[in-house]
């Protein structure tokens, strides 16, 4: 995309997503928004606020309370000319739809040799840090990222939330769109319009640095940036890579970054075992083997169910925990 005059607005992540839905619906009459409470209420996070009023009940509507039904119904809509955007009210409430997502949405294109495409977006308010009770704070990306046929995207700021969602809706492939709940209220400058670079599948270096590379996505990115800031005060220069898209995975940017510093910490809120963070650590360890001065460290959620509100701070990757991991990277001068 060449640089043209681009409209900008300062929006929270929730507003940016709402705006992306509105703009996509206005542009393409086949875009439908559906799910539990997404109609008149505007969703429990108000992300779909005003869409029913603006586009009518046929375009943004409440469904019966059944996640497999929503995902399966959307599959049919997408098979027949629509571009449904469905909302799973909270991460763990997407699990009843697992069969539909994994065996149908992910596989329809492949099963039919590309004849049936499913341009469908599954929006999931995602991850923790908001003091939610059980089942309201799961990080479910690894389940989806492990399933071929799905794109899995996790923005870390309002601008990416807007542009990645615009692209997800326009994509012929099904996209699991993970919305970090704790960033819903974070504001930022958003470039409006479709086709903003970088697109889905591209990671970016959010902060340059020379001593070690922090690799993060979604809600972990702001924490990584904070850690880098803090480290800088202590004289250590940390680079921060924001994946943006888990699938497709950007090996190029990630490996180049790690090779440039020779040290890496992977940060993710999800349980660590058999996770996306494990994948990143394994890939980086394999591909950058000879550039690595220290083992790749992971700072992830522990291998426990997401804690209740009063204990969640123990589970979340924190600046201190990230800096501890950095300190661990076998610095010869330490």
């Amino acid at each position: 995309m060449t640089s043209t005059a681009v409209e900008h607005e300062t929006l929270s992540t929730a507003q940016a997503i709402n705006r992306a839905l509105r703009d996509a619906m206005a542009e393409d009459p086949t875009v439908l928004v559906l799910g539990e409470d997404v109609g008149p209420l505007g969703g429990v996070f108000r992300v779909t606020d005003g869409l029913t009023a603006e586009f009518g009940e046929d375009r943004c509507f409440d469904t019966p309370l059944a996640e497999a039904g929503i995902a399966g119904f959307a599959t049919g809509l997408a098979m027949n000319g629509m571009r449904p955007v469905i909302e799973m009210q909270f991460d763990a409430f997407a699990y009843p739809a697992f069969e539909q997502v994994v065996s149908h949405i992910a596989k329809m294109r492949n099963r039919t040799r590309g004849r049936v495409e499913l341009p469908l977006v599954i929006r999931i308010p995602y991850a923790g840090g908001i003091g939610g009770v059980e089942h309201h704070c799961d990080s479910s990306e690894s389940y989806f990222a492990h399933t071929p046929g799905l794109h899995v995207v996790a923005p870390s700021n309002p601008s990416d939330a807007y542009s990645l969602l615009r692209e997800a809706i326009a994509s012929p492939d099904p996209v699991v769109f993970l919305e970090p709940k704790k960033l819903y209220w974070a504001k930022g400058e958003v470039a409006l319009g479709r086709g903003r670079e970088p697109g889905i599948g591209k990671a970016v270096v959010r902060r340059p640095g020379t001593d070690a590379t922090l690799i993060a996505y979604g809600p972990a990115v702001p924490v990584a940036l904070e850690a880098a800031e803090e480290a800088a005060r202590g004289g250590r220069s940390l680079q921060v890579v924001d994946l943006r898209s888990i699938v497709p995975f950007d090996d190029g940017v990630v490996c180049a970054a790690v090779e440039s510093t020779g040290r890496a910490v992977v940060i993710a809120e999800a349980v660590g075992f058999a996770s996306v963070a494990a994948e990143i650590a394994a890939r980086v360890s394999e591909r950058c083997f000879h550039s690595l001065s220290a083992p790749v460290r992971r700072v992830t959620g522990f291998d426990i169910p997401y804690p209740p509100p009063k204990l969640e701070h123990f589970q979340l990757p924190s600046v201190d925990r990230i800096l501890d991991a950095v300190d661990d990277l076998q610095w010869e001068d330490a």
Partner: protein
Amino acid sequence: MKSDVDRMLPSLEPVMLLDPDGRPTAAGKASLPAGEELLRGLAGMVAARRFNEQAYVLVRQGRLAVYPSSHGQEACQVAAAQVLADDDWLFPTYRDTAAVVARGVDPVEALGLLKGDWHSGYDPYERRVAPLTTPLATQLPHAVGVAHAARLRGESTVVMAICGDGATSEGDFHEALNFAAVFRAPVVFFIQNNQYAISVPLARQSIAPSLAHKGVGYGIPGEQVDGNDLAALLTVLSGAVERARAGQGPQLVEARTYRIQAHTNADDATRYRTDDEVTEWVAKDPLVRLETYLRAEGILDDARAAAFAEAAEEIARRTRDGLNRDVEPNPDDLFRFVYSRPTSQLVDQLAVVHDEMSRDALSREEDRR
């Protein structure tokens, strides 16, 4: 066949024994629960209403993470608990703390989940109350399994499994009812139809003649009852419990009621319903209805009413005191209960937390010096 089907279809109108003004209906005139039962129910409802109010204050004060109100649904929740024997089981949803308290669970423990210091505050075996369940309808198959296990051992346990109108749309509702029917499990499925699933009104959830009409599709008798009429609820639910206990299998009871407050403290109900609608239902208040009747009949006097209010106040006090006590959260708990023995990975991970904590403490100490 025809008579079988008829037996399973609900009455056309919900069973009502006391009308909204507290007067016995024709059916009520024919038979009402004993005065003592009704008094017990009233006491429970008074306590539930007060408990609910207290919880609302606590959530505003930040002592609860979230609170789904039971205001308006006290008759349903109290009746669901009251009809059970000690050996029976109750399977509540997140909204049913009032039922849990009515069952005898400590009110502070009943609020454990919503307080945010642990997922389930009480020991489910102590009063035979399953943990509050949030993922909708998912507790219903558990209820069937518990009932079936008891039946295999020849026990006479009955299980009361509660869900909302919205939850009936979930696949787990369907699978649970069918399992119960096929295994003739002694389960009473009790739908509190409060007209909304968060913002979604019943008409967008189902166009069935009633939710109770779902029973016949499983071979289960369905019944509708006025959910703001404690007398009717006690009659219908205890009938269902006793038939289940007698080996006649599961039943489906739909109570028509209303959620007077918003879905939770985080919800804004003005976005999806009118004040008029709420006002209309406030007029059908289950407490007022029963109290009016009991006073008219001379079953309830001022002294007794005052005693109920005082007992309710005592529960509120206990709740308040308990929730205002801060418990230092202990991270060890996060690792201790995942498995019967922690894996070596969990041991290592807890050590990380301990190490962080002792370094933190050290640096706090250094700061102080």
